[in-house]
């Protein structure tokens, strides 16, 4: 009997902890969005942090990531075009590859990449800042850490995800044109027709919202997880681990939800 009570207590505590961290995450996301939308909080210090975040998240990796995205796009387009031709559906090859790449694969791959690279870094940094009491030190010096440290990171992350998605998507469109029509400009009207068919207002808004949601998740979850780290140094890796797992599931959830919204 005590064993059962013990077990239930532990389960309940775990459940409560999960609940708390999610609530903290959403609370933080809300606070950050509110802060980001009020122009008063932007000043030279926060701008510097935003710029550094964008630099580390997007500019540093721009060239290698773009090359990788181009390679991935190229291979996927070839597969789609080849398969479509095999089944006599060449008319749909372009539309299919554009839908596949620009609407689904590239935003997700970008978000995953940024999550791996910057999300984990942010999580570690915030966890260490918390463990070392740096956050309290800043607060004592009259600095609002939400505005100085977290909000700029979130904004930087979102802008970075948007930038990378936009650049790789446009590249994928160019590659798709080349793969389907070859290197000649006379099929541009045809291409424009397919583009007009695929991208209506709802789809464009959808991509934008999805990228923003990815950017938000990629930064807010690590920050929230870092902030929830107990003040013990050995908890830092555990914090990063938890943050990354939660981030992965949230990214997948956003993707599935957007798919469901679009096609069901």
């Amino acid at each position, binding site marked *: 009997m005590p064993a059962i009570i013990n077990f239930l207590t532990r389960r309940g505590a775990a459940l409560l902890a999960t609940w708390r961290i999610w609530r903290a995450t959403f609370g933080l996301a809300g606070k950050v969005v509110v802060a980001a939308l009020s122009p008063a909080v932007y*000043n*030279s*210090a*926060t701008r*510097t942090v935003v710029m550094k975040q964008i630099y580390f998240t997007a500019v540093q990796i721009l060239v290698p990531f773009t090359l990788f995205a181009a390679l991935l796009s190229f291979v996927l387009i070839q597969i789609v075009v080849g398969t479509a031709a095999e089944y006599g559906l060449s008319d749909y090859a372009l539309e299919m590859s554009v839908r596949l790449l620009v609407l689904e694969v590239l935003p997700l791959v970008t978000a995953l990449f940024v999550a791996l690279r910057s999300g984990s870094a942010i999580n570690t*940094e915030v966890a*260490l*800042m918390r463990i*070392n*009491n*740096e956050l*309290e*030190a*800043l607060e*004592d*010096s*009259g*600095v609002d850490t939400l505005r*100085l440290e977290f909000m700029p990171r979130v904004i930087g992350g979102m802008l970075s995800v948007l930038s990378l998605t936009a650049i790789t998507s446009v590249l994928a469109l160019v590659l798709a044109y080349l793969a389907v029509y070859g290197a000649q400009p006379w099929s541009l009207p045809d291409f424009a027709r397919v583009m007009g068919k695929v991208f209506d207002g709802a789809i464009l808004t959808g991509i934008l919202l999805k990228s923003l949601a990815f950017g938000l998740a990629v930064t807010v979850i690590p920050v929230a997880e870092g902030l929830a780290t107990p003040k013990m140094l050995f908890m830092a890796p555990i914090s990063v681990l938890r943050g990354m797992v939660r981030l992965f599931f949230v990214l997948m959830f956003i993707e599935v939800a957007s798919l469901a919204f679009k096609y069901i």
Partner: protein
Amino acid sequence: MPLRANLSLLDNIALIPQYRHNLDYETTSAQAWNLLLLTGQESAALKRDPQLSHAERCVAKLLRAAIERPPIILIDRPALLLPDTHYPPFLSDLLERLADHLNDCWILDYRWNEPLYPPHLLSPAPR
């Protein structure tokens, strides 16, 4: 209180006015640089927290507090900040150098350390 680990000493000091008064970095870093020159610790300007010696870290913390010119600065148990220095002369020298930039500075310490400090630096209620 600890410094931000991933900012240089100079940036740690400059950050405070930059954030609080929305000054640009050039202005505030110059401000911080001047203070640092006064203390004679300018060689540490670009170092980060883990690379600093105890004296440098102590100076940085003091400057970070001082740059906003608060009416009063409390230094809690300087022995903890300066374990490897003969700290009473170091501290009074530092405070002399910064005299123009400080309003009031009190040292909080154990009662048995009272003889170590000049009387005007002692808080009204030492422990």
